[in-house]
């Protein structure tokens, strides 16, 4: 009875389905792209500023332009995205699934150093190019030797620590600051690695680390640290910090009046939320990363990022995330097919025009990147890099 009543509907749905399933094949090609990064968990706060909005922006822009140009015609992107819940095990499963079940043509690099390293073997196994955008480690040489498909763009730990020493060294040479540094770090892989790298470099640059402490990730009260640092009267304050503590330390430093000529916090200083929260007080604060926000390409990128996602990108890795997507598109279009090995080979030996400027790889490593930035007049400008153009001079931090 019921079947009879709905017979016509059922038949027409079936017919429509049959028709639609043939339809894309005759009309246009698609290119499947996979993405896996945190949407929840401790790293979600970073990836939802730096990674996911860029994915949305890039896919929209590519598809609005008709798709990626292949020899067989334009192919629109079909995006498959997964949440890795800030869990490396989950990230590995996601990439495996994208490769074997979804059979995607390319996979965007995951977010965060640990996640790129954890999933690198699977990327290698299935020959996917892994153009990382948010991986910072001193092991780049060893990793690129082991995996012929991995690329590094954002820099190394030693360069990040070294650049801070360089910036402070210049201020010391100019006589604006003395040689006493208070250094703190978050007791987590990234903070410990940076602090370890920084100690000998600072010493070599003629600095005296008079306060050197670590604190656990997620400390609810950082006032004892700022109090301790203030007690030793340093010329410069350096914190190898993560997002929640970057905010927490700075709020405490402001309230307790830790007035130093150079104040540095690491990750998230370049986030728009940091400038938003501290406003004029952010002036002169140094932080990890930086870009040149005044180039035309960067201005256009900021405008379209805001228009498409409603959010402002950060002043560091956001641009690099987008740049790696640009590199991927350029390489696929140059090769003209979905041949992953050919695309990897193309990335290795060519120079790419990106929103960050020209990027090329030496032994799969981009050697020119921003390392230190500073809030100046409401924008976060790169003040030190390993060879990018448009560095501004670092200023002395005014009092809070």
């Amino acid at each position, binding site marked *: 009875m019921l079947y009879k009543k709905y017979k016509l509907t059922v038949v027409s749905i079936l017919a429509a389905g049959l028709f639609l399933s043939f339809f894309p094949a005759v009309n246009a090609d698609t290119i499947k792209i996979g993405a896996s990064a*945190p*949407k*929840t968990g401790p790293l*979600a706060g970073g990836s939802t500023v730096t990674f996911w909005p860029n994915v949305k922006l890039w896919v929209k822009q590519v598809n609005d332009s008709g798709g990626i140009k292949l020899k067989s015609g334009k192919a629109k992107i079909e995006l498959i995205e997964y949440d890795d819940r800030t869990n490396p095990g989950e990230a590995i499963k996601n990439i495996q699934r994208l490769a074997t079940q979804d059979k995607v043509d390319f996979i965007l690099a995951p977010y965060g150093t640990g996640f790129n390293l954890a999933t690198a073997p699977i990327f290698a196994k299935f020959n996917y190019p892994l153009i990382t955008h948010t991986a910072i480690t001193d092991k780049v040489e060893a990793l690129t030797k082991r995996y012929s498909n991995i690329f590094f763009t954002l820099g190394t730990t030693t360069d990040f620590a070294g650049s801070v020493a360089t910036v402070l060294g210049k201020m010391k040479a100019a006589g604006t600051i003395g040689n006493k540094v208070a250094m703190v770090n978050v007791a987590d892989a990234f903070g410990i690695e940076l602090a370890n790298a920084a100690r000998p470099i600072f010493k070599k640059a003629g600095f005296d680390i008079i306060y050197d402490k670590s604190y656990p990730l997620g400390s*609810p009260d950082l006032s004892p640290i700022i109090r301790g640092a203030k007690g030793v009267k340093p010329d410069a304050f350096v914190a190898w910090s993560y997002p929640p503590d970057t*905010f927490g330390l700075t709020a*405490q430093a*402001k309230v307790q*009046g830790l007035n130093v000529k150079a104040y540095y916090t690491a990750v998230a200083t370049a986030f728009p939320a940091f400038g938003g929260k501290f406003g004029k007080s952010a002036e002169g604060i140094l932080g990890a990363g930086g870009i040149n926000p005044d180039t035309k390409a960067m201005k256009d990128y900021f405008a379209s990022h805001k228009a498409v996602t409603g959010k402002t990108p950060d002043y560091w890795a956001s641009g690099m995330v987008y740049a790696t997507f640009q590199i991927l598109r350029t390489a696929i279009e140059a090769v003209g097919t979905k041949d992953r090995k050919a695309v990897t080979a193309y990335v290795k030996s060519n120079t790419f025009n990106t929103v960050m400027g020209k990027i090329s790889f030496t032994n799969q490593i981009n050697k020119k990147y921003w390392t230190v930035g500073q809030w100046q007049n409401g924008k976060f400008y790169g003040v030190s890099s390993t060879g990018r153009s448009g560095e501004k001079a670092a200023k002395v931090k005014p009092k809070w």
Partner: protein
Amino acid sequence: MDIVIVGILLGGAYALMAMGLQLQYGVAKIMNLANGEMLVAGSFAAFWFFTSAQVSPLLAILVVAPMAFIFNWLVYKIFMRYLVKKARSEGQLEVNSILSTFGQSFILVGLMLALFGGEYFSYSYLEKPYTLFGQPYELNRVVAFLFAIFFCCVLYFWLNRTRLGLTLRAVSVNPEASGLVGIDVPNISALAFGLGGAVTAVGGSLLSMFLTFDASVGVIFTMKALVIVIMGGVRDIRGTILVAFILGLTETAVASLIDPGLTLAAAYLLFILILLFRPEGIFGKRST
């Protein structure tokens, strides 16, 4: 002196995190793993009021508290009631409520993610120095502390000096016997659960003045609250309050005198010591 003040301020913050859970776990017998998410929801509400309408978080709690109460009361009436009915023992109820509220915490995270997005949230309110004995402290921490003290006192006197408070304590000590003497246990439990949620959410609004938060940070607060409630003795709010302050003082003393890197170690050492020597918690009663 400095250490004592900083420690007490931190203790106030911990009390705000843990008092709500004590009411929910101690009286309503629901081990609420979504407690941290409720707190973060309170933070989001305060953030939203502050950034969209410049409403002070201190006023926002007037709206947050009743909303959170109604929400938690409904959660209890709709979901938890069945768990309580079906559970044959307190132990079974505990396991069931852990599983159910664990699921709830994911739903809440998902909702906040959908509404606000996953990035970090932070705003500046009363972020200026307040001088006490010649030392500057963050004014917002001092204000949050005063509120914490206020809530501690109100809850304490309400539980100990009023008839309704007495029935709450009775249910906490022995739900079966309370039922026998004519106490409406299901409704009292729902009241305690709703009230606990309201206290937690208000705590979240106050803490958001100085803590940076994001949609999935709740589990950290849940863990902290859980440790405090268990150390204090599950059935007595005095234990929760006392332990919150002991923990704040310990962590600050360790951070200032020994090394900031050891605060977590000190907190958990304290936890282990209490579990070893008084497994029922500081104010807990030894079961016979």
